[in-house]
Structures are given as C-alpha cells and as structure tokens.
C-alpha cells in the first residue's frame, strides 16, 4: 500500500506544497491527496452544467443548487454550534427570519424591490435575530441554551400564523425568482444553469471566508470554549463576548442562505423555512459531514440532499425520508465524527510522507 501512495502522492504532494507555502498558514496545510480531493470536488461542482446533461442527469442542476444553499446553512450552524459546542436547535429562525424579511418587503412594501435592498436588509434581520437570541441565552449552559434556541424556533413558527395578514399564514408570500442584469446580461434563476451558479458561487465564497475565520485565532478560541470554557475564562478571555461573535459570524451566512432559499422556492412559508424540522435537518447535515470543520458540513449537505432528492427516490415520496433519517441515525451511531472527517483523516494517513496523523 505504501508504494501505491508513494506513487500517487508524489506529484500531488509537490502541488500541494505549493499551496501550503502560500495558503497553508491561513487555511491549514494539506497533503497531496487532500489537495486532490478539494480541487477535484471543486472542478466537479464547477462543471456540473457540462457533465450532468451528458450523463442524462440534468435534474442534478436543481438538486445541487439546493444542496449549495443547505451547505451555506450547515456551515452557518457549524461556525457557531460546531465550533463553540453551544448547540443551537433553532438555527432555521435565522435563515427563516431573513427569508421572511424579504417576503415582508416584497409582499407589503414593494414587489419590485431589488436585491440590493432585500439582501442586505435580510442579512441584517438575521443578524438582529441572532443577537436577540444570543445575548440573553449564551450565559446559559448545557441543555438550557439548546432549549432556548429550540423554543425561539417554535415562537417564530407561530408568529407567521399570528400575523397572517402580513405573512400569509401557511400560504406564505410569493417572492419570485432572482432576476437582475449585469452589464446587459440578464441573470435569472428561472434558467437552471444560471440558478446553479447563483447558488454555488456564494456557497464557495462563504466557505473560503468561514475557513479563514475558523483557522484564525477567533476560531481557536471558539474551539477552546467548547473544550474547556473555564480554562478560557481563566486565561482572561471574555467567553461570552466570543460566543456572541460566533452567533454574529453564523448569522451572516444564515441570512444569505435564507435569502437564496426564498428565491430558490419562490415562496416563503412556515413549513419550508421555520418548521423545527428545518433546524434539525441542517444540524444533521453538519454532523453527518463532521461538525467543527466547515468543509464537513458542505459534504454533509451535498450528501444528504443528493440522497434525498435523487438516490433514495426509489423508496417513494415518504419512504425516502424514512430511509434518510435512518441513514443519518446510523452515521450518528457508527461515525459520530462525521463521514467527511473520516475520509479526510484517512487521506491524511494515506498520503502523509512520514506515515503519521496529519
């Protein structure tokens, strides 16, 4: 086996070293195989509109666009819950709050508002909601914090019915698709290829940003809070301040993801945005991939959505949900650290020159 990896790892390792010299400090060092996985996945994702139709799988453009949005949400959850260990069961409130902000603006203010207005205001709303939940609740420990976030989810869900004159109750609000013009070129998410890139590109940018943050000192403090909060306090660091920061960092991608999801579906309603299932789904994605890794939740989101929308369809409309949750349960029991973390470490061992852990 070692001769195999030597052969494979050699040229890859030298390319990876070029990356490590330049960016290793910022995003973490990679060996050749890990580098190949990242670049390979990136190429596969960027070229979906080329290969999917050739394989007769054009529907993947829709599935992977949806997966990109959920990857944003799963990463958003990860930077807060995964890294600090303060597990939020109500994160859909942040994305849902952003989506409903767009819905209320379009439905009650002006149907022709541009994304230059709705996007920043929606992200701002997610940020505000994040702070409103974070500031009082992050002093709570253990299950109480999780319960507060869970209950916040229930409150927001019911609010949509209580204010149904504005929110449309269970019918929700139609917000339409994304449609704008750049330099005379019309971008519309009615076109499956354009929609895919409109969802994929923000996902990649957010991934790079969050990786940067997670590998920085701030990320290290988040992890330290998770591992031993008392020790962090003892070192003179205000942990509450950093926990609030984690919520802020989380709210921005949640806001962007919520806004994208609103325009992906074209309708904002309680079921698809605020039902507590949505919060659990994004946790499941992050955990299946491997929480506190940013890349893991991306893998988890793509795996879960592709399984749900494509692979498990053979079990029927409801059967696939049963199968999906069963598979997630199996991952939780047998691969608690996440499938992509396992793969990552496996590649780390396989491709490292000294045979040690990477």
């Amino acid at each position, binding site marked *: 086996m070692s001769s195999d990896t030597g052969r494979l790892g050699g040229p890859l390792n030298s390319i990876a070293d070029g990356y490590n010299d330049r960016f290793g400090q910022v995003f973490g060092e990679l060996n050749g195989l890990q580098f190949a996985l990242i670049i390979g996945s990136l190429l596969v994702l960027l070229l979906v509109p080329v290969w999917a139709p050739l394989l007769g799988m*054009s*529907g993947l453009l*829709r*599935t992977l666009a*949806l997966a990109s949005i959920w990857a944003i949400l799963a990463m958003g959850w990860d930077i807060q819950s995964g890294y600090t260990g303060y597990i939020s069961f109500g994160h859909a409130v942040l994305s849902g709050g952003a989506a409903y902000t767009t819905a209320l603006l379009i439905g009650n203010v002006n149907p022709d508002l541009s994304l230059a207005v709705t996007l920043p205001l929606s992200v701002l709303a997610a940020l505000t909601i994040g702070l409103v939940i974070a500031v009082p609740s992050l002093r709570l420990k253990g299950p109480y914090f999780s319960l507060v976030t869970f209950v916040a989810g229930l409150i927001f869900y019911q609010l949509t*019915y209580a204010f*149904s004159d504005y929110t*449309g*109750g*269970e*019918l*929700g609000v*139609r917000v*339409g*698709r994304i449609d704008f013009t750049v330099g005379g070129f019309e971008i519309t998410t*009615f076109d*499956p290829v354009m929609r895919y890139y409109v969802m994929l590109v923000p996902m990649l940018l957010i991934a790079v940003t969050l990786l940067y943050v997670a590998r920085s000192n701030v990320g290290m403090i988040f992890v330290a809070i998770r591992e031993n909060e008392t020790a962090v306090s003892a070192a003179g660091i205000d942990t509450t301040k950093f926990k609030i920061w984690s919520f802020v960092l989380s709210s921005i991608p949640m806001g962007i993801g919520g806004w994208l999801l609103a325009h992906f*579906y*074209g*309708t904002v*309603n309680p*079921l*698809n945005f605020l039902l507590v299932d949505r919060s659990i789904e994004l946790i499941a994605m992050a955990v299946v991939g491997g929480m506190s890794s940013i890349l893991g939740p991306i893998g988890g989101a793509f795996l879960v959505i592709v399984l749900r*929308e494509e692979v498990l369809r053979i079990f*029927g*409309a*409801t059967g696939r949900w049963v199968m999906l949750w069963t598979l997630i349960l199996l991952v939780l029991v047998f691969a608690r650290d996440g499938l992509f973390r396992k793969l990552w470490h496996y590649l780390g061992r396989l491709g490292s020159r000294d045979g040690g852990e990477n």
Partner: protein
Amino acid sequence: MDMGAGAENSAQLAVDQVNDDGGILDQEVELISEDSLADPGESMTATERMVEQENIDVLIGTFVSEVTQGIVDYVGEVDIPFLITGSADPITLTDTVGEDYDQFKNIFRSGPINSDLQALGMADYAEFLADEHGWTDFAHIADDAAWTVPFSENLPDELEDRGLNVVHEDRLAPGTDDFSPMLSDVSSADADAMLRFFAHNVGTGMLVNWRENEYEFGIEGIHVPGMSPEFWDDSEGAALYETTSQSGAAGAAEITEETVPFTEAYVEEYGDSRPSLPMYMGYNSYDAVFVYKNAVERAGTADYQADIDTIVDELLETDHTGATGEIEFYGPDSEYPHDVMETEVDGTISNFPVTQWQDEGEFECVFPRDFASADHLAPDWM
C-alpha cells in the same frame, strides 16, 4: 393520503379511457404522478422535475393551497397548462391570472368552484335546511387556516342577508383535540346547525362528543377527512348524520350522465383499496383530463412552448359535461378569471352538492334537491 390516491387513480382511469379511445391527438397518453407531501418546497422541485426532465404537457392537481401557491410562479414562467383540481382558494387565480394575465394565462381551475362561490353555495344549503327543518340559527366554526378565510369573510353576512341568523362564530387551531368547549359554546348559543369547515382538523372526537351529549344541532358544512369513503369505518360510525359538500357527491347522485358510470368504473378498478371512491379531487381530476384533451384537440396542438395562446383560447371555449357537472370557465376579464363557473338549478348553485352519512355507512346526496338521492336527516335525538 386518501385524497391524493383517489385523484391519482381517477386521473389514471381517465388516461386509460382516453388511450382506449385513441389517445390525445393520436398519441398515447402517459400519467406521471408525484406526491407533493403537502409541502410547497417538495412540490416545487417535483414540478420542475416533471416539466424539465419528464417533459410533461399538462399539469393537473394540487390539493393544499400552499402547494398551489408555491408552484404558480414557475408554472407561469414555463407556460405549461395547469389545471387545478383540488385547492379552492380564489386567490390562487385572482392573484395570478387576475394580476398579470400574460404571465399566468396558462393556469385554470377546472374544479371545485372556488371558495367564494362555495360560500354562496353553502348559503343556498342553509336556506334549504331552514325550509326542511326550520333551522334558522347557525354557528360558523372554521379551521384557522387560509382556505377557510373566504367562508369566514363571506358566509356570515350572506346568511344574515338571507334572513338567517349567525349566533356564534369561532376559529379552531389546526390539530385541536378537545372539541368539548367549542361544542358547548355552540349549544349555549342555541344554534340549530353548526356550519364547520375542517380540513386540518379531523372531527371524529367532536362527532363522538356531539352524539354522547345529544347536542340539539346538526353538523353541516365541509369536512375533508369526512369525505373519505373509509371515514364511516375509521370513525366507527360516529359520522352518522354529519354532512359535507363535495364535488361529485361521492357518486351518490346522477349529477350528469357521466357521474355514475365514472364512479362505477372507479369502484371496479380501485374499489378494493383506499379510497374505495374517487373523492372530490378524483372527480375533478378525471374531468380535467378530458377538459385538456378536448381543448388541445380543438387547438390541434399540445405544444405549449410554441402555442400556449391557442391552447388557452381553446381551454376558455370549454363546454364539457363532466362527472362533476357542466364545466365552463370564467373569461379573462371576469372577477374570477379562468375559474370554473358555478352552475345553477332553480336559483341554487348545483355543482356544490352536499352528502350526508346515513344509515349503514352510506353516502347520500341530500342537496341540491334536483338530484338528491335521499332526504336530509336531522339527528334522531333532535
């Protein structure tokens, strides 16, 4: 659920009959079904999949209003003919076809009549109850849900205008499990009948409570779970005397010459599985297949991408005798553009028939009088 299975079976039956008769435009027809799971997001992706990957030519269905609402923008954009056969909220057409005709002209509702018109039909029915039993005082109880809004907004005023009294009004949260406070309110308001509009609430517990207390009022209106032919057994007979309006009247009456043959064909093919009758969406979905067939055959094309205007023009010309009644559409400039028109007999709306669970668990059509299969029964304790 039963409603969706009934609709799918009925559409399949229509497709089989069409194929036996040479197909549409001499082409064999294939039915592709997707379960929306009553989830707008699921139905959005299912619709896209059917349009883009399965290359369907027409979309028929949608029961839950939020599902209809969730797909209209996409459907409007791609121009595929869409015949709604389940959800009745008028805004699914007034907010789309009525607001931006050019964008949404491909959307129609071939049945049931919308809930504004259903509210008028219900007022006709209340007058009938006043004639039959001298019931003049009504309680109005509705699911706290969007689909009941047209009833809550229109029906109480309509009843008052017709000289009837609304003595109590209430809304129930979806998933209510204790109906006794509501029933006792209706009873203390001295209502002769309660008009209840339930889709999210299953009224079995309410019916048992009603019977045990021998409350002195009838239970009328719309009860979606009670439309299932299996509801009698599911409720262990507690359904006795409750009524619901439903397109097709569960096949209990000869609404047109199509109603009974379709019902019999359905029972022969699917009578051993749930639901053993088509249910209202089944009748509407069966009719929709023929409405579409006739329109595209008159148009000479089913190619909506090239000729949607011709197909829409021909859909507007529809005059079809279906299992639910005579089907014609309101024109583009009317109050309810592209909505199926109400039909009238003797001044009462006739394509909004009411059925009652009677002895031995039979659906009987009790209204309108012209084709009723049995008299409306007041509970024997009244």
